[in-house]
């Protein structure tokens, strides 16, 4: 196809649309009002509980962890699930914590995928990523991969561990994108690939029977870090002493 032919396809399509576009344009739909009417207004604890229940509905495992102890929990989970190799980001914020935890088979995603595709697909049991936040309504993780945490970490390994800060759970997708200004400045802050993930990969393509691990992870484990609850628990502990 020559460039010219393509330019004219563009001009012809746009020309037809312009010739037919209605003169009077409908007003912008009020999406804010819709979500304001549907808003739950529940407490922080209720929102966290709702996230956990929804995530469980999608067969995602939610494990409460502490700020000091989450790497130990991760090590124990890896041992229990027989994970022989755990992939982490090359320059992730949790690098040193992970390294200090003594998790066997820890390896960094430190080369372009083309250089080790086979190993990634065939010899990597689990991937660990951070998360940007979550959505309570649907039990959904918000993950923005970048150079420090590449896209395939949450897709190719059969188990995906994701660390979530309970303070970052929004009520709905709409709330998350408006509160965080995803589209501000023409969406310049959005990464090349932004993801919402609700549970492990699944399919019902054979006789409507649900099966997990269609192409992506067979298991999704959310490490839920709730500092407020920790503080409360610590305070209660101190009171008792």
């Amino acid at each position: 196809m020559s460039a010219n032919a393509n330019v004219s396809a563009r001009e012809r399509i746009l020309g037809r649309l312009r010739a037919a576009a209605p003169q009077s344009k409908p007003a912008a739909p009020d999406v804010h009002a819709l979500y304001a009417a549907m808003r739950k207004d529940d407490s922080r604890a209720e929102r966290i509980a709702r996230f956990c229940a929804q995530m469980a509905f999608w067969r995602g495992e939610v494990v409460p962890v502490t700020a000091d102890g989450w790497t130990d929990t991760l090590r124990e989970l890896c041992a229990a699930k027989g994970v022989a190799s755990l992939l982490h980001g090359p320059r992730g914020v949790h690098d040193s914590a992970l390294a200090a935890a003594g998790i066997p088979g820890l390896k960094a995603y430190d080369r372009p995928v083309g250089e080790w595709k086979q190993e990634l697909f065939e010899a990597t049991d689990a991937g660990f990523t951070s998360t940007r936040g979550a959505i309570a309504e649907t039990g959904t993780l918000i993950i923005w991969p970048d150079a420090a945490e590449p896209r395939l970490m949450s897709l190719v390994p059969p188990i995906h561990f994701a660390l979530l800060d309970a303070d970052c759970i929004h009520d709905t997708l709409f709330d998350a994108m408006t509160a965080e200004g995803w589209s501000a400045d023409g969406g310049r802050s959005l990464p090349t690939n932004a993801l919402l993930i609700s549970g492990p990969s699944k399919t019902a393509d054979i006789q409507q029977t649900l099966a997990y691990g269609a192409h992506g992870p067979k298991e999704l484990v959310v490490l839920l870090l709730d500092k407020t609850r920790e503080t409360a628990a610590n305070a209660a502990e101190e009171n008792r002493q």
Partner: protein
Amino acid sequence: MSAQHPLQFVPAAEFKQRSVDATSDAHLRQSFRGAMDFLMAKRAAQFPDDASLQRQRAIAEAIRQYSLARLPDLLEQLERNLTAKGVQVHWAENAEEANAIIVGIAQRHSAKLMVKGKSMVSEETELNHAMEAAGIAALESDMGEYIVQLDGEKPSHIIMPAIHKTKQQIARLFAEKVPGVSYTESVDELIGIGRAVLREKFMHADIGLSGVNFAVAETGTLCLVENEGNGRMCTTVPDVHVAITGIEKVVEKLEHVPPLYGLLTRSATGQAITTYFNMIGGPRKGGADGKGAELDGPKEVHLVLLDNGRTQAYADEQMRATLQCIRCGACMNHCPVYTRIGGHAYGTTYPGPIGEIISPHMMGLAATHALPTASSLCGACGEVCPVKIPIPDLLIRLRGEATHEARPGHAPLVGQGAARSALMDAVWAGWAALYTRPALYRAFGWLATRFRFLTPPTQSGWTVSRTPLKPAARTLREQLAERRRKTH
């Protein structure tokens, strides 16, 4: 491929015969009945509060109408923003042009294998045939699509492509066609087989293809909705990603996406959300100093914008509503005709009610005029449609266009008046003559009732599954007159 019949489907003119065959296939009917009941129940469970559903539908309709009213501007804005992010945007007027663009991209990269995420638009252009003709393998990777491709078939439903198949049929298919696999009816094992085959392919594919569910103009974002993860594989693992979409899929703002997405998954499969929502905003970043360089993701991203008859629907104020569709499939799940004849009988990429109103624009009325008649006009499709497309009205409109000249001031549709026949014209002329002349009408009534013993016992199509039509012994007028005499 000839220019006139780019689509390799069975001609829609054979639609009636195929429907007859389908309705007498007990297995097929059981598959569809079961699947549709399942999907209808799952959808209903998602919408316990009708007032809330109606609020959501009203917003979704408003978003789609708002976007369509600005379509040319939004397409240009989308193109600008995607181009700025390094995505290459192509335009195609028809299926051949779209295929040529994609084959061209593949050839520039000397591609041998293309993995495909679910894309009904690529089914619409018959991309797989074009790729194969160019010597490039095109492999479907959605489990349902993989199954139907393995069996040399077409999808029978836009959301659940292999819905017509039982697990026993799939078990036999895998045992026959996948090397080293023995017969198993365990769904987990069958999915495991597909997973193993396809992961191998994802690893080696040169190019990945996907559709688009929503394209956001203001941010230059392509959104993909899926459960399996194959869409993410296709758009992330190969070095080149090509997305193809109809020109109608664009919305202006990111905030327009959540209401549409929420209704799409709930209407389609009764899920509050899918496993993955994949927002693509460009190829892997190089990173000037090598530091911020991303380690995966495609190095090249292309978007093909396809017209293929959509501008014809756009040109008419009433039929423009067809383009509001977000392809949820709810209209087919609730259609009593689709449930009985299944997706293949239609012979088009899009079956069911949405297919009946969109296919005439894509393939012309000459090939598709039978489709809008495949409805009892019960109205279920229009009632469940999340973007409130008045499907029954559009069916009636297309029936009219198939048998009449274009309305004054309207450009004729492709295939305008194709269903018109001299016989039908004569019948209607006779009917009009009879019903506008009282004397003639009375004479006709008298003759029909007095000579009712002459009614043939078989009346072509009617008596295949119904009792013959027979005039009453006396006309209604005579019966009423009789009653009046008795009561006075």
